[in-house]
């Protein structure tokens, strides 16, 4: 969709490079790197995602921020404020957990996604990618796809800690899985915002600061930690229009019971909007850049 696949079928030169000289005179049959195959964006994105995953496996430390931060918030809120907000920490844990699930995936998508793209762009290997027949978008998509592993690990850890503290899903397994999938999808589509910031700013410090601060007004300006009815008017107005509110309501509905269809629909809608707007803008800015 972002690159034109080669329409002409080329011959693959599997012979050693000595055959090259004989082919250089004519201009019909070209000895080329390989046959241009369909779906270059998908295949190259997956190949590059594989590369990022290998790198993550070798430096597992990069996963830590995404794992630890949500757990800290969960523990902090439950034990510091739980008694005051909900009367008991146990009841508050039930209220808070679905929102922290969304916080987890949003944070996982924001903090290091943009950062890894900026550091990658400055590496020598990017020059090689750029001199190869690789769709430009694949360089971004591959990086973002590989981050999916971080969402999954972060969500598993969060559920583990939540269960240890006493959280229980009040619906059923299918709904819990749907809540998780929805949160991951939402975090993924919102992560294109940080990709856009990364491509536009191209500075590690700026990008990590923005990526870290951005989730706060988005995730905390909702009914995550306390019902929006208790907030001052201006904050409540923000919570009402904030798209993350829908994601948190959907998560609450799926994990605890309550209205589901409306919030889920709105979450999917907003996710699609983020993906279309930020994704397109990021890829366009990126292709203009290189």
């Amino acid at each position, binding site marked *: 969709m972002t*690159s*034109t696949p*080669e329409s002409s079928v*080329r011959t*693959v*030169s*599997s012979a*050693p*490079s*000595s055959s*090259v*000289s*004989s*082919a*250089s*005179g004519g*201009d019909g049959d*070209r*000895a*080329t*790197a*390989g*046959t*241009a*195959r369909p779906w*270059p964006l998908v*295949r*190259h994105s997956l*190949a*590059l995602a*594989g*590369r990022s995953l*290998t*790198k993550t496996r*070798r*430096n597992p430390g990069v996963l830590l921020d995404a794992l630890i931060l949500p757990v800290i918030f969960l523990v902090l809120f439950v034990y510091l404020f739980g008694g005051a907000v909900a009367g008991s920490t146990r009841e508050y844990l039930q209220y808070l957990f679905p929102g922290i699930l969304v916080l987890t995936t949003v944070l996982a998508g924001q903090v290091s996604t943009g950062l890894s793209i900026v550091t990658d762009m400055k*590496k*020598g*290997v990017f*020059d*090689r*990618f*750029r*001199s*190869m*027949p*690789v769709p430009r978008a694949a360089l971004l998509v591959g990086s973002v796809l590989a981050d999916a592993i971080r969402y999954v690990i972060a969500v598993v850890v969060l559920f583990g800690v939540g269960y240890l503290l006493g959280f229980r899903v009040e619906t059923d397994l299918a709904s819990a899985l749907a809540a998780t999938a929805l949160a991951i999808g939402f975090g993924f589509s919102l992560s294109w915002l940080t990709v856009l910031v990364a491509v536009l700013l191209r500075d590690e410090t700026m990008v990590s600061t923005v990526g870290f601060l951005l989730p706060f007004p988005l995730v905390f300006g909702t009914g995550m930690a306390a019902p929006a009815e208790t907030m001052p008017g201006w904050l409540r107005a923000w919570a009402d229009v904030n798209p993350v509110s829908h994601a948190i309501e959907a998560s609450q509905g799926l994990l605890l019971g309550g209205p589901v269809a409306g919030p889920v629909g709105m979450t999917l809608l907003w996710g699609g909007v983020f993906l279309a707007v930020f994704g397109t803008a990021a890829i366009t800015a990126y292709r203009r850049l*290189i």
Partner: protein
Amino acid sequence: MRPAFQVEGLVKKFGATTALDGVDLRAQPGTVLGVLGPNGAGKTTAIRILATMLRPDAGTVEVDGLDVVHDAVRVRRTIGLTGQYATVDEDLTGTENLVLFGRLLDLPRAEARARAARLLDRFGLTEAAGRRAATYSGGMRRRLDLAASLVGEPRILFLDEPTTGLDPGKREELWQTIRGLADDGTTVLLTTQYLEEADALADEISVIDHGRVIAHDTPAGLKQQVGGQTVVVRPRDPARLPAAAGVVGRVVGRPVEAARGVVTAPVPDEHAFTEIVRALEHADVPVTELALRLPSLDEAFFTLTGHPAELSGSASGRSREEP
């Protein structure tokens, strides 16, 4: 015959700086073009434009008859690039790097693996194939880099200062490889700061300075333009310096310079060098250094332009040290 690549009137500006100011370059298929110039002359910019990584501001740039702007994707299937710094992923192993590049060139997985193994073997990296590139020595990384640019069996290869930072032995090794590639019919564009390197590898040399080509010739022609070679003799015993100067002076037929422990003298041809070796042996003057030196880039530039090569921090003459 259609040139393998052809650059005409190439201009590239970065803000107020003009990196390339009307450069012409061309090479016939299967030949090696050396692009010689100091740091900041515009060599890397030219390579980046040829490799479709930068857009030209003016001029035409064709690789294999294809325009680098409009036909960028097809150009990328024809070329291989090795940059000044390592263009491999340091977190991946040698094999993983080469297989990834093969996959990105649309090779089937098995073929990508087979080519990776062949290239690692050819560049003596089989033992290190399973290690992360970050653990490689400078020479190994350069070889992996060159291997990476050959995964697609390119017909045109761009090498941006491929031997910078390598010790002399490794440099010689890489030269052999580059010669082998050219013998196999690959067209090579090689940038370098060393006349010696361009002389050893190139069929033709373009000298560039301040974004312009100031000379274009064969190595022999260029050497004629910039002056001949110099012999350097360092006697083991500094006290024998006058004796050494006498021996060299008799061979070249005029008094020679002797200072700071070495005798230096311009020589008319390689033949004189052999005579000097024999005469020194005959006169029993043991030497620790005996070298035939081409003019350094600085000296060549001075001859060509009348001014020293600016911004050329490390462009100094190198000598082959005798054991």
